[in-house]
């Protein structure tokens, strides 16, 4: 209660809550609208106050689903995703999403129940050293030891998850401090005005002198390429990047994590570089004299053999995480800072110097890039003879052509992921949801559900492999029950396709343990059993009608089982550990293909 005659600052803090209530109220204070989870004994006291909270809770079928849904939500909205599960096996089940979020810098906050304080260390029922297990795969984690600390810890968790380089934060909560039947759960409600973390002060403003150095290097460069990474998406720097690229007239490659950060329809966009990147993106980086690296981290899937990567290029490297600078490749101009702010400063300097007119003549380089593009496009062949299978690339192509521009595309991990990234034309940030760093099979279905919850007015499609689908398909039960109308396209080739591709190329076609089964599950019936609309597509003529039918269904999930060619491979390809100069092209992708 508030009494005007008293000191205003403490009056509202007299409210007595228990730890469970305080935890839910803290989430409300952080603006959390939805959380994904599954209750159990240790977390039950925190589940109780959810009944009285405006926060929507989505009950998952497996805790891994809760974690990936939180990630999908964060990918699609840019806001932190929240998951809450119980102790022990629930905590171990959510380890994969935590590690996934860590590698892809996805802001999520995960709350795990823990056995009561007095039982910690006794090997109690469903006890697990969650903090110990997740220490190296979270940006930060904390075991809360007192109910009074709960608002502070929650506030800090969201601050850490969403600032600097975003990432997962885990809060482990012993049962006694949230259980109203235990006196240890009593606390006086407060909400911290600020966070006090003496060791956590991310640098967001880039050093002005370094930014000027970067501008100077650009102004000397004849063959520059902008190497844009997932940091562009995370920091909301797409508009700034768009402006910079246009101002300089410099081409942009968008990494797997940055697809959509710069529009594919723009003439300066080269698409994805790396192991399965397109020829022009890969080769222009190899031939560049300058890489303007923005929020990217020289991942091995981009560089190939590091010593042979972009051998003539000087490096400008902008990253909010100082540890990324110099980790893989020494930067000529390293800049620590938020990539959006740094780009905006860089734009100012380039403008002062005269904008595009001040840049050297790069006609030769631009012409070279155009020639590569014409000569080696991403291409596939969907011919058709009776008895043929569908081409997976064709299915994705048709999907793109028959869905709204702002469709969010989620994918699992494998061939279908690479084809999706290659063929889908991304024109907006936050429309590509995938597991890049950890490469988590089974990511797509739950991530799509999380994305759809975060962006309910947008169409959300998941392109999944049949191997991936079998890992987390049960979350479609969650989607049906919660009326979350996601759409799943299974590219079903009956194989663990990417593994098969490697066995074909590097293991003399010894196909060990990659054929999923001669007795494939009937995905149509499986989907229907989970409350979805199920379809099976085997002929090219059926592809578009099936997609249109799926688009028209908005009251339940839809699953289409596309029966695709298992011989089809992802091209181009740079074999693991090889130089990017040794890129292998597909038969349809121009001369030099083999």
């Amino acid at each position: 209660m508030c009494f005007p005659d008293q000191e205003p600052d403490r009056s509202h803090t007299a409210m007595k809550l228990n730890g469970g209530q305080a935890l839910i109220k803290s989430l409300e204070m952080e603006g959390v609208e939805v959380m994904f989870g599954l209750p159990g004994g240790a977390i039950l006291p925190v589940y109780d106050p959810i009944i009285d909270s405006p926060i929507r809770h989505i009950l998952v079928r497996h805790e891994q689903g809760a974690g990936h849904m939180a990630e999908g939500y964060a990918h699609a909205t840019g806001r932190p995703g929240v998951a809450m599960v119980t102790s022990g096996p629930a905590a171990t089940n959510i380890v994969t999403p935590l590690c996934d979020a860590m590698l892809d810098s996805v802001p999520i906050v995960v709350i795990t129940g823990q056995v009561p304080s007095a039982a910690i260390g006794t090997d109690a029922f469903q006890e697990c050293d969650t903090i110990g297990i997740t220490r190296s795969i979270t940006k930060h984690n904390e075991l809360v030891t007192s109910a009074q600390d709960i608002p502070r810890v929650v506030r800090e968790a969201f601050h850490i998850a969403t600032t600097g380089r975003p990432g997962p934060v885990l809060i482990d909560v012993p049962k006694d401090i949230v259980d109203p039947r235990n006196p240890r759960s009593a606390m006086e409600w407060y909400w911290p005005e600020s966070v006090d973390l003496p060791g956590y002060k991310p640098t967001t403003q880039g050093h002005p002198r370094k930014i000027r150095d970067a501008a100077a290097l650009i102004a000397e460069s004849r063959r520059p390429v902008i190497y844009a990474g997932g940091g562009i998406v995370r920091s909301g720097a797409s508009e700034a990047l768009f402006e910079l690229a246009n101002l300089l007239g410099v081409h942009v490659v968008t990494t797997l994590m940055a697809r959509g950060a710069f529009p594919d329809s723009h003439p300066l966009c080269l698409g994805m570089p790396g192991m399965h990147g397109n020829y022009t993106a890969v080769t222009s980086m190899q031939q560049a004299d300058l890489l303007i690296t923005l929020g990217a981290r020289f991942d091995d899937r981009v560089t190939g053999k590091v010593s042979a990567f972009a051998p003539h290029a000087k490096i400008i490297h902008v990253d909010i995480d100082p540890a990324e600078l110099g980790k893989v490749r020494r930067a000529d101009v390293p800049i620590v800072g938020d990539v959006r702010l740094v780009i905006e400063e860089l734009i100012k300097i380039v403008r002062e110097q005269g904008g595009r007119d001040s840049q050297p003549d790069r006609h030769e380089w631009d012409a070279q890039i155009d020639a590569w593009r014409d000569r080696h496009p991403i291409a596939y062949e969907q011919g058709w003879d009776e008895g043929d299978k569908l081409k997976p690339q064709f299915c994705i192509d048709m999907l793109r052509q028959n869905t709204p521009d702002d469709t969010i595309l989620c994918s699992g991990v494998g061939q279908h992921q690479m084809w999706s990234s290659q063929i889908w034309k991304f024109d907006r940030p936050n429309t590509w949801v995938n597991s890049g760093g950890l490469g988590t099979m089974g990511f797509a279905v739950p991530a799509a559900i999380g994305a759809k919850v975060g962006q309910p007015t947008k169409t959300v499609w998941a392109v999944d492999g049949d191997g991936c689908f079998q890992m987390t398909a049960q979350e479609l039960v969650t989607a049906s029950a919660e009326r979350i109308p996601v759409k799943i396209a299974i590219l079903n080739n009956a194989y663990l396709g990417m593994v098969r591709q490697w066995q074909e190329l590097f293991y003399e076609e010894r196909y060990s343990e990659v054929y999923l089964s001669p007795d494939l599950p009937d995905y149509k019936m499986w989907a229907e059993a989970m409350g979805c609309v199920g379809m099976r597509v085997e002929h090219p003529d059926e592809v578009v009608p099936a997609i249109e039918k799926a688009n028209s269904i908005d009251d339940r999930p839809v699953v289409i089982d596309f029966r695709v060619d298992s011989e089809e491979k992802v091209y181009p390809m740079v074999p693991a550990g090889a130089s990017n100069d040794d890129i292998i092209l597909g038969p349809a992708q121009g001369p030099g293909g083999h």
Partner: protein
Amino acid sequence: MAPIAPPPHHILSVLVENKAGVLARVSSLFARRAYNIYSLAVAPTDDERYSRITIVVDVESAPLEQITKQLFKLVNVVKISELSPDESVVRELMLCTVRAEPGTRGQVIELVGVFEGRIVDVGHNDLTVELSGPPSKLDDFEDLMRAYGIVELQRTGRVALAKLEREVPRLRSLGRVG
């Protein structure tokens, strides 16, 4: 044959928040990235909010830069400084039980005196010696004692502080300090 170069020791002085589990975070970060910790010592500081961890690692400078940056990403790590051996005061404590039978006891006691050690326990045939100082001094003492027979030995690992800035000639130039 060229002498084997000593391993590139680096001393990191890490100021951390005085919270549960911080030492585990620091040590598991080293383990996770496959770096060996040569020695590690941790104790509270004068400010109860912070502890100081002194870590000695054997790495070349380039990976050290990476490990320092990774370490600094830990939310509870407040400050990291690398202390160069020349610019810091480094100490280690040793407890050593050494054979000292009646025939050799006098020599052992004499050497303990030369090294400014203290005898802290006496048995019929053994002595336990406490000795502190720069690691090299402890190494020398250990070498000498081996001849008499080391029964048991423990060292604490290093603690270090940066040397103070002085305008007058430093005492260390006399070989007495540092």
